[in-house]
């Protein structure tokens, strides 16, 4: 066991530091530092433009998507080097949220299933942020039960014709491309009739309708497909193998989200040191200490879990389903922290005006955004199922639709009676 940098790691860190010192958008630092969870602040600068600019700069100097092979725009770096990179990139990493889905989930799927020509064409631009990707999985009838999805793909010559609807598609409005899971055969069991594609979001027949979220923002969208045509060479994996392909995406999703997810601990700790409670800094209150200790234990535990995972990856081990716990712990924690932070502020905790509220209303933003963390990318309940079944080896849930052809599965109370 050893937590210090090896000489090679120290050398690499120095190299990263030099690059970040010389090229990072330092003028954004004060704004980024104030970014509340779910809101990236860039002051008067446009966030999207600034995010793309920083990504482009990184790519030009070989610091984008470090672990990808160089021919696809990466650096061929090790998992450990990637960790060092994100430690040193620090605040500026907050500009990357726009690219997480594309780089963290779509790209690994493309690497595993796209043709060489497509990889050469699409991956470098994904790495450089010139093209943004989204993930078109969830539907009104297929969220947790993703395999219940209904969007149809029908073969027509060398093309597929897509009809149906996706929902909750984050970033669709900024996206150039997306990976799309469809139903190609409704007569077989639900997992068996699925097929994956990628498509140009500007294709005729694609309609994107933003959804207003509970926190007032509009990050996710409805996406409608009206006779959208996709060439067969944009199919990812075999026809009917879409479920297996989606597993690649979802495994990477939990890695991409679970490893680096914010917990809210640094923010609450900062608050209780300055905020007064009963005439003394809040941190001196025993009840506050108890809460704080409980959260620190979780934040530190998740951090050490991530380090253990990196260590195992470095030795060639595969990440397992146990990484599902990261988001499960962090999502609940953030929600609790937000609630507690507002409690300590009394009635003023209700203010959301960033000009007046404490810390530019960061805890209010956390309160309003954190419920989504417990839903997106697998709900708390689904994650517990995964831990129970795939980590602990408990028997599967009883599934009422087991083995049924897709088009015979009940979808509402009426269907059942």
């Amino acid at each position, binding site marked *: 066991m050893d*937590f210090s940098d090896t000489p090679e790691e120290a050398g690499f860190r120095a190299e990263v530091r030099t690059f970040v010192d010389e090229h990072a958008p330092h003028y954004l630092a004060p704004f980024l530092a104030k970014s509340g969870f779910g809101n990236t602040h860039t002051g008067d600068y446009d966030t999207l433009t600034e995010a793309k600019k920083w990504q482009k700069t990184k790519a030009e100097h070989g610091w984008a998507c470090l672990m990808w092979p160089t021919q696809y725009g990466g650096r061929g770096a090790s998992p450990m080097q990637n960790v060092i990179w994100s430690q040193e990139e620090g605040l500026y990493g907050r500009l990357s949220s726009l690219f997480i889905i594309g780089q963290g989930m779509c790209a690994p799927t493309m690497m595993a299933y796209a043709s060489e020509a497509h990889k050469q064409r699409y991956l470098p631009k994904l790495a450089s942020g010139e093209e943004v990707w989204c993930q078109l999985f969830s539907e009104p009838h297929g969220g947790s039960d993703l395999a219940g999805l209904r969007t149809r793909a029908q073969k027509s010559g060398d093309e597929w014709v897509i009809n149906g609807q996706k929902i909750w598609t984050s970033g669709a409005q900024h996206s150039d491309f997306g990976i799309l899971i469809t139903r190609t055969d409704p007569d077989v069991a639900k997992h068996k009739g699925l097929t994956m594609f990628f498509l140009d979001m500007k294709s005729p027949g694609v309609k994107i309708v933003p959804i207003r979220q509970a926190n007032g923002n509009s990050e996710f969208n409805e996406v409608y497909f009206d006779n959208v045509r996709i060439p067969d060479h944009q199919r990812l994996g075999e026809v009917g193998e879409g479920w297996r392909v989606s597993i690649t995406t979802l495994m990477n999703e939990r890695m991409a989200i679970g490893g680096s997810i914010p917990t809210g601990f640094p923010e609450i700790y900062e608050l209780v040191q300055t905020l007064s409670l009963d005439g003394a800094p809040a941190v001196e209150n025993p009840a506050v200490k108890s809460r704080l*200790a*409980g959260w620190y*234990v979780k934040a530190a*535990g998740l951090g050490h879990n991530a380090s253990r995972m990196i*260590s195992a990856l470095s030795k060639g081990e595969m990440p397992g389903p146990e990484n599902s716990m990261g988001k499960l712990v962090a999502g609940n924690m953030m929600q609790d922290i937000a609630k507690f932070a507002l409690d300590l502020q009394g009635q003023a905790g209700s203010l959301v005006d960033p000009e007046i509220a404490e810390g530019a209303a960061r805890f209010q933003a956390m309160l309003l955004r954190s419920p989504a963390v417990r839903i997106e990318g697998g709900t708390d309940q689904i994650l517990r199922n995964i831990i*129970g079944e795939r980590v602990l080896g408990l028997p*599967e849930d009883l599934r009422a639709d087991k083995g049924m052809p897709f088009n015979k599965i009940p979808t509402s109370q009426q269907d059942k009676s």
Partner: protein
Amino acid sequence: MDFDFSDEQKLLADQVKRFLDENCDSRVVRSVLEGEADFAEAVWQGLADLGLHGTAIPETYGGTGAGYLELCLVAQQLGAHIAPVPFASSVYLVAEALLLWGSEAQKLIWLPKLCTGEVKGALATTESLTQLRPQDVATTCSGDRLNGTKLVVSDGGIADLFVVLAQPESGSPTPALYLVTADQVQVQAVDSVDLTRNTARVTFAGASAQLLTGEGWSALQKLYDRAGVLFAFEQLGCAQAALAMAVAYAQERFAFGRAIGSFQAIKHMLADMYVAMKLAESNCYYAAWALANNSADLPLAGATARVAATQASQLCARDNIQVHGGMGFTWEFDCHLYYRRANYLALELGSLSEWEARLVDHLPLQQSA
């Protein structure tokens, strides 16, 4: 960075596990629980023969000098087996105190005997029905004579050597730590939530005492920083064993025509136990490193491991009973052994709320977001 135990360390853990699987099953635990034996003497001797008491004690004093990472893994196995031996008191507390503050002569006398298991140690601090505070210590030492009563001494019923917290009558601002041998004290067994730990009330009436360190209170904090990590590993082992027992039962017990582990209420409870255990495990591993390397991070890392492992062991032990239904509340099933041990360990060395406060007090000021 390399965040894992080495292959040799894992091999040692495996060897300890096999020894305890063979020699320390729940029948052995129960023989002590039922009062048929004061402690598991064969297990105690076997551990000593394997050189495990001296895992972190230098060879000059009779140990193997293997190190603290190794000792942590031994602790984890002892916790998993609820071993009814005074290992924690002797090794993590008394031997450790001697290593830290003993004179060369004291080390040469006591450490080799602690390594062979010939001498068993105990730490005597608590006097009243409240959390421990330095200003409340009523046991006194005048010259080399110690007077007072310690109310709850783990393994006190079988100890040969005590480390005692007492106030010097010379008017020192802090209590001191003393060494006292068993022939100088009166010992009265008292029942505790974990009947396998030989808890005793120990009375000192003019007991002959040797000073270990005058700065007793800060010494005790330092001792807790270190021992806290080892206790956390015992708690981690206890959590893992209770979780494994619960998972096994959830797979084999049927109700409503299906394994109870397929009910989400049970499955999700087990998932939460796993998460608590895993958080404790990772915090423990980091603390093990901090302990072995005398890192400046030790007080925080140790408290973090201790708090996480207390939470995990209490949760896993509690919900293991729940998973077992009525069977879980019988004397016959082993669930209560974990429940008792988990809740006993949680109170030794100071309770959860005390450790939570320690943790927060050691957080670096201003951790910027």
